[in-house]
């Protein structure tokens, strides 16, 4: 269990943030710039002297230690590689100062694809390469807890797409508690186990990522790119139909064939605008997935003439964005049974 509690007053702003999350796992701190995410991470690492900060990791009080003894890895937004050292020496900086641990140099080089960069100086590396070295450097210090402060936000879209898979791999390979600050919903939806929503220095919601992402009443769901997050396992491959069946709780979700063995954990991202609602089972449609659902909440979005519907399905919570007209015609209200139609092609998949 990771318990964090921070109280701090700046000139003109105050932070009062507290949450807990199971370990290991990725805790995403999600909120707009200036909400207090970075300050929280700095306080956890001990770089910001907060009025009051408590960090308890599996019973150990990390806040009682000097920052250099906490063994909390920190990946900064801007990388902060040491300019006078090669990539290799940067990677080894924490390694030689840490007690022997389970994270090996060669393993990290392989995990982050750093083999070709080792002898180069930071100035000669691209933004994405620099960030990967920074992540490797933090990992090699054998951290008990890893902090990542918007590690992808300084990168353009192409560099982000380059680094994001490495993060997903890292998450799957190392069983390490991670605090991940971000204001990009897709990163959070892909990486987080626990989601903590922060606004103006306060926690406005916290819980398992599927639950928080699926709440129609939160600012998260009001976004254009709102997604429902389901977690499941590969059930079986149907080579004949060229489909893979994923078990999400009691539901089966079919997606185009994927290259993962049966039993592998997967994460499904279902965009709210791609979910169709129906009262009767449709026949002769292209949609492969008809999930029995119960309406949890309906939130009208007046300006867009739309309604956001939160749905309980077998494997978690989905979001559907429909027109106000449709919500009225179907008589959608909390508790009503409904069918959620999910196109196979609209499901974004990630290894979990």
């Amino acid at each position, binding site marked *: 269990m990771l318990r964090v509690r921070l109280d701090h007053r700046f000139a003109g702003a105050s932070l009062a943030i507290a949450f807990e999350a199971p370990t290991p796992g990725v805790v995403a701190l999600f909120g707009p710039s200036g909400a207090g995410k970075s300050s929280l991470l700095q306080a956890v690492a001990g770089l910001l002297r907060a009025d009051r900060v408590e960090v308890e990791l599996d019973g150990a009080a990390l806040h009682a230690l000097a920052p*250099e003894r906490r063994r909390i*890895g920190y990946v900064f937004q801007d990388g902060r590689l040491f300019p006078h050292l090669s990539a290799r020496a940067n990677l080894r900086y924490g390694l030689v*100062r840490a007690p022997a641990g389970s994270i090996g140099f060669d393993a990290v080089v392989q995990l982050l694809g750093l083999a070709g960069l080792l002898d180069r100086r930071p100035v000669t590396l691209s933004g994405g390469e620099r960030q990967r070295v920074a992540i490797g450097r933090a990992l090699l210090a054998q951290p008990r807890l890893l902090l990542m402060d918007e590690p992808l936000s300084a990168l353009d879209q192409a560099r982000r797409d380059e680094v994001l898979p490495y993060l997903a791999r890292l998450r799957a390979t190392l069983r390490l508690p991670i605090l991940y600050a971000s204001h990009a919903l897709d990163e959070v939806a892909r990486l987080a186990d626990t989601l903590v929503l922060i606004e103006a220095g306060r926690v406005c919601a916290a819980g398992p990522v599927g639950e928080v992402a699926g709440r129609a009443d939160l600012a998260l769901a009001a976004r254009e790119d709102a997604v429902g997050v389901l977690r499941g396992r590969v059930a079986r491959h149907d080579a004949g139909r060229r489909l893979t069946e994923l078990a999400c709780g009691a539901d089966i979700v079919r997606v185009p064939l994927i290259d993962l063995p049966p039993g592998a954990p997967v994460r499904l991202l279902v965009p709210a605008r791609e979910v169709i609602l129906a009262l009767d089972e449709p026949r002769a449609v292209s949609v492969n997935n008809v999930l029995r659902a119960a309406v949890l909440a309906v939130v009208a979005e007046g300006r867009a003439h739309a309604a956001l519907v939160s749905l309980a399905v077998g494997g978690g919570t989905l979001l559907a964005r429909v027109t106000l007209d449709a919500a009225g015609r179907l008589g959608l209200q909390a508790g009503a049974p409904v069918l959620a139609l999910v196109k196979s092609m609209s499901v974004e998949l990630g290894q979990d």
Partner: protein
Amino acid sequence: MLLTLGVALRAVAFALPPALLAAAVLRWRFPGRFVLHALVHLPLVLPPVVTGWLLLLVFGVNGPVGAWLQRAFGLRLAFTESGAALACAVMVFPLMVRAMRLSLDAIDPALEQAARTLGAGPLDRFVSITLPLAAPGILTASVLGYTASLGEFGAVITFAASIPGQTRTLPLAIYAALETPDGEAVAARLAALSVLLALAGLGLAELFARRR
């Protein structure tokens, strides 16, 4: 001539460690910082003759530190070559501290924070991050100190006098030459030499600054 270079070299060697220490300490805010700041800059604003005289009071044969050095090590500073070097060192000390602070301040404190999260303690951080990043600035400061030492006059003549072959450095020699009848030719030669040395020093400093 060689004497002058030797004196300047020793002056820089004397001044470098305390200047680095002072520059490093002055980065932090602490009570008494202003006092240290003022103390460091005193030789820059005092008339050099006053500095030399104060040195004489403290390090002279009858001064508290001078008498102790004499008793403990048989070391005499006043009116010796070492004394000339000490006088130069004190005079160029503030210049060196200022140059070093510039280069230390140019280092992003975020890098030291990063080192901290990687398990490096204060001294470790200073040696592994701050010092290498400030190295060009420290070299530049040393060259500056060396060049300035070559020209030191007032404090040297007060504290170490102008003893030929012992404490008569280049500027003192030029002055002495000008005092003697028909010494102009000697003075001109020495002056030319001093111009050359100064130019060499400036060139060297520029070279280090550019390497950065």
